[in-house]
């Protein structure tokens, strides 16, 4: 379950007093996503979608309001508990955020290694998910030797390999061709059917139309529609 109650957020700055008075990027955000729910997150650029996703993934703190992630009050978790909670959240970043000095295999294996899974299980799961995203022939390839679409598929594989309870994706189909985008959506909906809560931010209204689901619509830091 993901629940926001009157959440406000501004980015912390360390500059002079004038710049510390930065405006709130999110204002009075409230919504609920039940366990196993699926939500599209839409809105124009600068509406606050990425900031909202950062709060969901515990990458930023709210200025005020209450956030529950997977049944845990995010305001009350210790740093260790927050890290353990992040392991249950799969994230596909808009800019992929792959580690350039690691191979495709090691990038995808990273969340499982951080979770101390055993190597035989890691090998089986990583090999399978890389086969599923069509990159089984590039296990040892580094990200800078892959195309944008291939990098995005690595990022997606990394996000889902640990079978997360919550999957958060920021423009996951942005660099994919239509066929790959369809395969990705099949994977995401399959995970959703297995109980994973999913939030996908996108500008692609065609994709939204093809996979009907409730929408969170953002504009100027506020939620303008929910459902």
């Amino acid at each position, binding site marked *: 379950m993901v629940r926001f109650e009157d959440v406000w957020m501004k980015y912390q700055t360390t500059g002079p007093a004038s710049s510390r008075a930065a405006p709130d990027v999110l204002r009075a955000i409230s919504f609920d996503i039940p366990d196993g729910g699926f939500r599209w997150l839409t809105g124009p650029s600068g509406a606050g979608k990425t900031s909202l996703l950062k709060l969901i993934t515990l990458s930023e703190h709210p200025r005020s309001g209450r956030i529950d992630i997977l049944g845990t009050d995010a305001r009350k978790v210790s740093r*260790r508990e927050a*890290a*353990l909670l992040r*392991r249950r959240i799969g994230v596909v970043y808009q800019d992929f955020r792959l*580690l350039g000095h690691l191979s495709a295999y*090691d990038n995808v294996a990273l969340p499982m*290694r951080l979770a101390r899974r055993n190597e035989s299980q890691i090998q089986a799961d990583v090999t399978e998910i890389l086969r599923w995203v069509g990159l089984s022939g590039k296990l040892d390839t580094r990200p800078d030797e892959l195309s944008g679409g291939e990098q995005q598929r690595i990022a997606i594989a990394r996000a889902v390999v640990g079978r997360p309870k919550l999957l958060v994706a920021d423009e996951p189909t942005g660099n994919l061709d239509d066929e790959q985008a369809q395969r990705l959506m099949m994977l995401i909906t399959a995970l959703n059917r297995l109980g994973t809560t999913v939030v996908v931010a996108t500008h692609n209204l065609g994709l939204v139309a093809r996979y009907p689901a409730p929408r969170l619509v953002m504009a100027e830091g506020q939620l303008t529609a929910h459902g």
Partner: protein
Amino acid sequence: MAEPATTRPDYLGLRSALSDRLLPVLVGAMTFLAALAVAGTLAAASLAAHWQGDTAAALTVQVPNPDDAGAGGTRLAAVLRALSTAPGVTNPQLMSTDDVNHLLTPWLGTNIAALALPIPAVITATWAGSAPPDALAASLAKLAPGTLLTSGAAWAARVAALTSSLQACAAAVLFIVALVAAAVVSVATRSGLAQRREAIEIIHGLGALDADIADRFAARATWLTVTGAIAGGALALPILFWLSALAAPFAGAAQSPGLPPALWIALPILPLVAAIIGWSTAQLTVRGWLRGLA
């Protein structure tokens, strides 16, 4: 020396972010200085122990005109009797004329008897008292005027003060060396953090504990500091052997050729101390830096 193989990939790319060049060289230089300071401390302590042991306890009493009449016999007999019963004085021994002449030979030559000089009688004894024997000197001078008592305690006290000063200086040097080593590790770690900021943010977002990240930096920093410390300690060895050979005549029979055993124990401890400094400094630096992340 090759870094031990690890089954864990270098997630953070620390082999390039914390390079094996500058940090080990600087830590090696610090260890070199620390080895000299430790050797100086131990040498000073050894010399002080030597001086404070035998020399401090030695008493020498000179009795001029020993055969003149004194209380109950000659002046010499009176002083010997007084020394035999004085508390804290043990084993008073009259030096033979031959021994006294032998001591004076460098100044007076071998035919001292022909010079007809008034040579005093010399008595040696051991002083076990805790305070300087000033009262004893006064009573002997009263018993046989002109009698002179000299004690090694005054010299030993001066040597002890000098030793304490040297040891305090060496301790200060060690403290400063440790601080500089910690600063060097901290700066190198901060540089590594800056270079790997994005990678750290990624694995932090994937659920890495602060300990996961700090342990990786600490392991790398520890490896580099230990490598540098071993090299620095090894480079100090020839210098220490040379200094030990120079100091040997001042250490008396207590000092056997080569380095003292205490130094052989202390030198291997330096890499361990460097490891502790490297590990703890990296841990503190990384954990403090990570608090800046959500």
